[in-house]
């Protein structure tokens, strides 16, 4: 597996997990720390060979807590560092993610969602939308969250995750699901397309010939903390203005707009096309960034469309963000599957017919 995944303009057939791992290597990831968990163990497997071959750092950590804290330490030196995990184990990392947001460290976390809550199961799920976008750590923080829907996007958005994490000095999550992790599609590994971000003004690289620096998550006075939070949230606002990304098809004249991210968005797209053939005015909006969420665009569309249908593999989590954006201007319905493969195209078409009164 590892031998064929070099930089190439030729397509190779590979799994989402291997695609993510190989893209991380090509993005210049210098350190990988991780602890295995299904359905993302291939990422650690790939890294265990490739990182050592390239004389980069790979540590099979003793726990998820250790892994994420190793990433924190490595990122404090300005290194490109990452970990990868899944649902119940990402839950263990929440404290460190809050610290990383507070310390403004560019950590990259790949979260390949499986069934939950608790130990759950290893079937695909999107039950950690809230975990990623709202967060389970303490305090007022935000992580950048990118959601691939194809194996090619697993590559492209891994590149982007490293870039955005370093550009904004902010923890960044690549949020995939178990289906994408295990799915194989032909992909192309192009050159890492982003510039390297200068971190010479903050990274802890040794204080020779310059004053020492401290990175810490501690503001002893109320004034300090107010000032810090305002600064942090000004950064989040900037991220919202600059980095919100989504795919939008056939929304201009749509009566119903499907909103879906990740693997269910593929079926939503096919269902939308089927419905167009039937003469139903259906569009699709697929958020690619979940934070920042395309709220502004959804609010605009809510002025002229009748209904939104959120298609998710959970009990309905993204639907809250859609409702907030819609703000009562249109109806918002849910088509979900609690866990497992996405709702089928036929199920989505049925739901659309029902909602259009056909």
């Amino acid at each position: 597996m590892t031998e064929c995944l070099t930089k190439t303009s030729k397509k190779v057939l590979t799994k989402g997990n291997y695609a993510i791992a190989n893209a991380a290597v090509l993005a210049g990831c210098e350190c990988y720390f991780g602890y295995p968990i299904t359905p993302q163990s291939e990422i650690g497997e790939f890294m265990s060979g490739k990182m050592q071959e390239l004389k980069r750092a790979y540590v099979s950590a003793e726990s998820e807590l250790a892994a994420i804290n190793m990433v924190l330490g490595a990122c404090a030196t300005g290194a490109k560092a990452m970990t990868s995990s899944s649902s119940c184990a990402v839950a263990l990392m929440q404290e460190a993610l809050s610290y990383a947001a507070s310390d403004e460290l560019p950590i990259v976390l790949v979260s390949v969602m499986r069934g939950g809550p608790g130990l759950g199961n290893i079937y695909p799920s999107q039950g950690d939308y809230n975990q990623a976008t709202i967060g389970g750590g303490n305090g007022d923080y935000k992580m950048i969250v990118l959601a691939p829907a194809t194996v090619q996007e697993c590559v492209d958005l891994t590149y982007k995750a490293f870039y955005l994490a370093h550009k904004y000095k902010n923890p960044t999550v690549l949020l995939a699901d178990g289906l994408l992790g295990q799915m194989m599609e032909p992909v192309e590994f192009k050159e890492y397309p982003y510039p390297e971000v200068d971190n010479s003004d903050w990274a802890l690289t040794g204080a020779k010939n310059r004053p020492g620096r401290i990175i810490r998550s501690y503001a002893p006075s109320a004034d300090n903390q107010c000032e810090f939070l305002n600064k942090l949230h000004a950064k989040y606002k900037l991220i919202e203005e600059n980095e919100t990304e989504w795919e939008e098809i056939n929304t201009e004249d749509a009566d119903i707009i499907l909103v879906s991210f990740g693997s269910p968005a593929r079926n939503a797209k096919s269902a939308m096309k089927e419905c167009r053939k039937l003469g139903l005015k259906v569009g699709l909006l697929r958020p690619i960034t979940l934070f920042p969420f395309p709220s502004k665009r959804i609010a605009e569309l809510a002025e002229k469309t009748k209904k939104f249908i959120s298609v998710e593999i959970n009990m309905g989590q993204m639907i809250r963000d859609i409702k907030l954006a819609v703000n009562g201007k249109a109806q918002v319905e849910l088509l979900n599957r609690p866990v497992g493969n996405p709702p089928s195209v036929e199920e989505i078409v049925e739901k659309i017919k029902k909602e259009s009164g056909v």
Partner: protein
Amino acid sequence: MEKNFIIAGFGGQGVLLAGEVLANAFMLDDKNVTWYPSYGAEMRGGTVNCEIVMNDSGDVSSVNKAETDFILALNQASFDRFLPKVKKGGWMIANSTLVEEKKSRDDINYFFVPVTKLADELGNSKMTNILSLGVLAKISKLTSLDTLEKALDNVLPAHRKNLLPLNCKALKIGYEYDLSAVK
């Protein structure tokens, strides 16, 4: 055009690998293709399957299809489970060494072929998956023997390349199997 396939059998029969070779062939043919496995707590002796979706529309395929164009069932459990999923006018191709030849649906095409027996005659029953892939590919008319051989070469890792000639032989036996029994 979009066509989908399910390859199913016992864990250990090589159904995921056969699917990967087929997906690889479609990639070599410049088609869009998606492969995904049934993914639970699978084990040797249990049932396992993978689905392959190919299209030439240039767009991403949907997944978790309600119906299937071509199903290859390598054991009885897979045959029973997936028979209702065959699309009207679609194909159920079954390993008659392990599957009872019974046609309970009249709206689909059946093809029974003793693939395990043929693989045994070739000298290695582990060739069942690749031999049956040959049959499946021939019936589907969606890729060529030549492409499948290249795909096999792509998929086999370096330390298994010694098995390539035997696999190619198995593939050819399947691909050239007499389909005259097919109506």
